């Protein structure tokens, strides 16, 4: 184990952890805003109570997303300073734009939303939550544009004197086809997580606390299930396009997703394989003929390049070395992503069916599935990130810079190990605290209906922003 390994583990752990909170923030923001809009339109206090209830869960989660996000921005410089020197010219701009255009919007308007209930006119107050939600969606776009550049570098030229890429076309970076398809895919995943949270929380209330605010929770249950279902459809649709783009720009990743060693035409897709540990020989497999060819190219009989052929091609192009990722990781993370995502969509469909025409979900298994539903899209998005990042290896910037050449050379193993352990411990501790708090508020149920917030009052001092802290 050297500093490089630890730095990679740290990046993996902190990024996966960060992305447990991010999709919920991004997906739940617009849903809370929708509840508030419904209240604004109809005046029905039911929607106001839902706004407050899910707003609280949103805020508990938001705090975690913010604080773990700062780690990401510092980490490039701390552990990956050679990477930062190398790509700063291109990679820094979307990061700076994310902060300037998105984070300011998100945090400032969220502050206005939390504390502005009694101070802002109702319409303006409603606009603040939508603006904050827009900010978080924008931030997702910029960070995905930055990440997509690492997958498919565009809009730059190599400076022959420094040997480093220089940005020549920011528009090309922001409209990178990988970014344009990854953005809706990831956004749909965020809505899937948020929809699933609504399902889990409200199915608990509907079935375990019958008679308490049942109409409200039934509404949230249907709404959440619909969001999950539509998001699943969007995920499948965008994922399909994404696979074809990936085949084009990173064929090795597609080959590694199937552990396809030899080029095949037509290529089949295996749903499940038992093989040797490196995936090079299979013992047992369930295979779906033509499917990989179709996933990769849209043509069921087209040829799909295998790892061995790509390895030979890259070795000729970039010099000796291994250019394949760790195949069992890509193979299984791909299947976990697809499997959990589809399962979540199926459960959402069953939940919707189970309450057709005013019925209540009866099956104990369905209720249990509904209760754990958020774990499925969360697991799927985690697997998706592991797949896309591990599938890019050994590159940190595909075709340009190897991961091992991006690490900080001046940072010792002891230092990285200290920081890795510190983050892991504090993250584990906070996960327990945040999880308990979420459960506590989710179980507590809807807050009592408050009298309508007044329009802004005069110039006198106001009582200390009741309830906010």
């Amino acid at each position: 184990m050297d500093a490089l390994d630890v730095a990679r583990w740290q990046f993996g752990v902190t990024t996966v952890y960060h992305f447990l909170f991010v999709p919920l923030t991004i997906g739940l923001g617009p849903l809370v805003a929708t509840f508030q809009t419904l209240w604004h339109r109809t005046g029905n206090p039911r929607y106001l109570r839902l706004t407050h209830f899910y707003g609280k869960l949103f805020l508990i989660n938001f705090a975690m997303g913010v604080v773990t996000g700062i780690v990401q921005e510092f980490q490039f410089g701390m552990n990956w300073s050679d990477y930062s020197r190398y790509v700063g010219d291109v990679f820094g701009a979307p990061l700076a734009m994310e902060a300037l255009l998105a984070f300011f919007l998100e945090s400032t308007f969220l502050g206005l939303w939390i504390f502005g209930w009694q101070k802002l006119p109702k319409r303006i107050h409603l606009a603040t939550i939508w603006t904050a939600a827009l900010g978080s969606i924008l931030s997702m776009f910029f960070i995905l544009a930055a990440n997509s550049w690492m997958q498919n570098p565009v809009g730059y030229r190599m400076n022959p004197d420094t040997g480093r890429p220089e940005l020549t076309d920011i528009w090309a970076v922001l409209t990178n086809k990988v970014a344009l398809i990854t953005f809706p895919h990831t956004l749909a995943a965020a809505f899937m997580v948020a929809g699933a949270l609504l399902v889990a929380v409200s199915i608990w209330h509907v079935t375990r606390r019958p008679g308490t605010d049942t109409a409200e929770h039934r509404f949230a249950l249907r709404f959440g299930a619909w969001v999950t279902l539509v998001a699943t459809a969007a995920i499948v649709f965008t994922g399909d396009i994404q696979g074809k783009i990936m085949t084009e720009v990173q064929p090795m990743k597609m080959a590694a997703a199937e552990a396809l060693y030899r080029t095949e035409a037509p290529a089949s897709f295996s749903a499940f394989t038992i093989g040797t540990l490196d995936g090079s020989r299979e013992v047992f497999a369930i295979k779906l003929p033509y499917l990989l060819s179709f996933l990769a190219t849209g043509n069921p009989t087209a040829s799909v390049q295998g790892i061995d052929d790509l390895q030979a091609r890259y070795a000729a192009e970039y010099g000796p070395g291994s250019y394949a990722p760790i195949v069992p990781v890509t193979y299984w993370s791909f299947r976990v992503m697809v499997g959990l995502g589809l399962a979540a969509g199926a459960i959402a469909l069953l939940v919707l069916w189970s309450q057709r025409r005013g019925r209540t979900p009866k099956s104990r298994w369905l209720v249990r599935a509904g209760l754990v539903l958020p774990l499925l899209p969360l697991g799927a998005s985690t697997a998706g990130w592991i797949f896309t990042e591990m599938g890019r290896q050994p590159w940190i910037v595909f075709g340009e810079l190897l991961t091992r050449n991006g690490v900080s050379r001046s940072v010792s193993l002891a230092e990285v190990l200290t920081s890795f352990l510190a983050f892991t411990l504090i993250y584990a501790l906070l996960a327990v605290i945040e999880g308990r708090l979420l459960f506590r508020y989710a179980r507590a149920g809807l807050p009592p209906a408050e009298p309508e917030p007044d329009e802004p009052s005069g110039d006198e001092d106001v009582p200390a922003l009741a309830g906010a802290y």
Partner: protein
Amino acid sequence: MDLTTFWFGAIAFLFVGYFVLEGFDFGVGVLMRTFGRDDAERRLLLGTIGPVWDGNEVWLITGTGAMFAAFPHWYASVFSGFYLPMLLILLALIVRGVAIEFRGKRPDHAWRARWDLAILVGSLLPALLWGLVFANIVRGVPLAADHDYAGGLTDLLNPFALLGAVTFGAVFVLHGAVFVALKTTGEVRDRANLLASRFGPVAVALLLGFLAWMLVGVRRDPVAVGLGIAAAVAAVAALAANRRRREGWAFAGTAAAIGLTVVALFTALYPAVLPSTADPAGTLTVANAAASPYPLKVMTLVAGVFLPLVLLYQGWTYWVFRRRLAP
């Protein structure tokens, strides 16, 4: 003015924003536990920064992002070189952010007491460490010819940097006390004012010592000296205003003192961005640390449109929450 100098100035501006704004919410965070006598008072103190602290922190994220984009080598050397201080800052900011959001979420005393301690440590530690980091930046650190940090932890713990740490901490506490006096009424307001009067001279003395050492002992630059004197005058004026209970003026004074100190520091530094005390070839300047002209142009355009917008809506937030809070 070329774009590299412009961006050096822009980053200075972002850090001025960060320290002036987060400075007072660090100060309030440090004071909350001891100054707030009971839970109601602590909630009141937290309420003064509640709507704004998160937006204040984005100034750091933007400053860092701008540093990465405009001066990748500066960003890389500072963050890998100041590894342990940066790690501690991160851990502190994590704990602090979570603590501010979570403390009020449960009624029990032990829960709140733990988070209050977290807010104290999470506010004090970054205040001290930013002082340590920026004092070391202006003083210079050992860099190898490839601009990588070539020193150890002890190189960062020199007397000047330690004075910087204590100065940042003390001045932010003063700034926070003045802010509390500005944002509250009644007894809390009186006590905050008194605290600022008693503690203020210590903080201002530290600031004067730090400025003198920086501008005479570390880097000599006539413009920076002028700015340093202006910072000192603002700090002393803030104390005078506080004694006369002119809280708005006192807060303007501490804000100006912090802002001018940061500007003086950046001015003294220029054209270097991270001087090397080891291999002179390692010194990073606005020229050799900078990104190429095209991304700087793009960023100038983006910042030109969006930074005024940010100032506008953040200013509006402060306007919305301009009133004092009563217990």
